[in-house]
């Protein structure tokens, strides 16, 4: 039984993660640290639909091919219960804790059952939330019948956070945000009030503009983002950190 009290076996990993210059380097480092921590698998991923083309998203793993094919065929990148649960917390969780974080549907239970049938038992997932980027996570898992060692979890949490950061650096995820469209202050104000549920007329009264001007601002904001609908505009502005949840809900 492995007993952990310090950074010990992962100390080398932090250095390797920092120096990794390719995904192959990082995969090698992750394989080594996950096995040292008593895990059979690792999976570092952005939570996007990998079956849809053109995504510059990262996924590094050593899961069985069978499971990955099954997962992608069902486009689970965004709806997988573990991925959804990781939106609900910033602290790592074991998969047994998932029902405490999100309400599981019948389909979710089916997904977890299918994972077990394809060789993946329990696991531990470290969420990674960086404002303005697709959310992601780094998971470590064991084969069915094996146990996740509780003592190792603090180390796995830290390893996951550093691994995700290395993946962002290597894959240039950071530059995404600099290419995002920008809105004028007025457009942004209008988007914020729209996201709070106000009508154009109400926004006009709040900001001291004419209703036509507000409508025009929101139309131009949609054009800058190249999105057809206002709801999509609000989500994009949130995603880019142009507005935040706390802006929307602040009284």
């Amino acid at each position, binding site marked *: 039984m492995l007993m*952990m009290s*310090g*950074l010990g076996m992962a100390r080398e990993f*932090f*250095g390797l993660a*920092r120096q990794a210059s390719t995904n192959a380097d990082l995969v090698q480092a992750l394989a080594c640290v996950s096995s040292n921590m008593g895990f059979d698998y690792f999976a570092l991923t952005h939570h996007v639909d990998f079956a849809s083309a053109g995504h510059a998203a990262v996924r590094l793993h050593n899961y069985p091919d069978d499971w990955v094919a099954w997962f992608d065929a069902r486009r689970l990148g965004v709806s997988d219960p573990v991925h959804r649960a990781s939106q609900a917390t*910033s*602290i790592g969780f074991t998969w047994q804790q998932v029902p405490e974080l999100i309400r599981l549907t019948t389909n979710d239970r089916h997904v977890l059952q299918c994972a077990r049938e394809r060789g993946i038992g329990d696991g531990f997932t470290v969420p*990674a*939330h*960086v*404002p*303005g980027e697709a959310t992601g996570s780094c998971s470590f898992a064991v084969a069915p019948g094996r146990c996740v060692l509780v003592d190792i979890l*603090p*180390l796995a*949490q*830290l390893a996951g*956070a*550093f691994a*995700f*950061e290395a993946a*962002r*650096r290597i894959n240039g995820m*950071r*530059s*995404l*945000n*600099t290419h995002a469209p920008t809105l004028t202050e007025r457009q*942004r104000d209008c988007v*914020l009030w729209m996201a709070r549920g106000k009508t154009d007329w109400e926004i006009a009264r709040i900001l001291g503009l004419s209703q036509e001007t507000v409508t025009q601002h929101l139309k131009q904001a949609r054009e800058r983002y190249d999105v057809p609908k206002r709801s999509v505009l609000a989500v994009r502005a949130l995603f880019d*950190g*142009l*507005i*935040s949840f*706390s*802006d929307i809900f602040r009284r």
Partner: protein
Amino acid sequence: MYLTTLSGAEGVSDGLLATMFEARKRIFVDLLGWDVPVVAGRFEVDQFDDPHAVYLILSDESGQHLGSARLLETDRPHILDTLFPELCENAVPTGPTIREITRFSLDPRQNARQRRHVRDTLVFALADHALANGVEVYTGVAGISWLQQILAFGWQCEPLGLLRENGRTLLGALRIAITPETPTLLARAGLVCEPCVPSQPIRCAA
């Protein structure tokens, strides 16, 4: 944006410091619910806000606090060695070239984009301050969400120990190496430094 570097020796009588202590109360007490002392119901001031503390403060043209950070000398009592030594697996890093970053704060009255600009600019200001003053290492204690953001700034970080539960979050301690390359690393990570005017605090002649 204006950047002011002040030492705690100026005392609360300095207008900008007072604005910062008020902002810290809004952020750490009102918003984040930290159990830290509040002076006169308005100022968040603790035992480390002493004449040895150094503050980097970003403000707007009207003197409003936008963001700030406090630097503590590590060969004197500081947060890591006084409150959270268990976050370091080995000895707490101390010495004349090591400072601890504490109370990194962004004024919540700004929107998300403004906060991001202030955050980025403050991180660059910290790197510049270190390079100009012979500081080679920053240490700091952070909750897990903030820790992930600190890593994402792209500078050279390593953990000082394992994360530990503290209330509803996990706390960890980081060591951040500052080298002449640091500003390049920050820029490469997508941080953008806003132009800011270094401002010398104006003193009344006695």
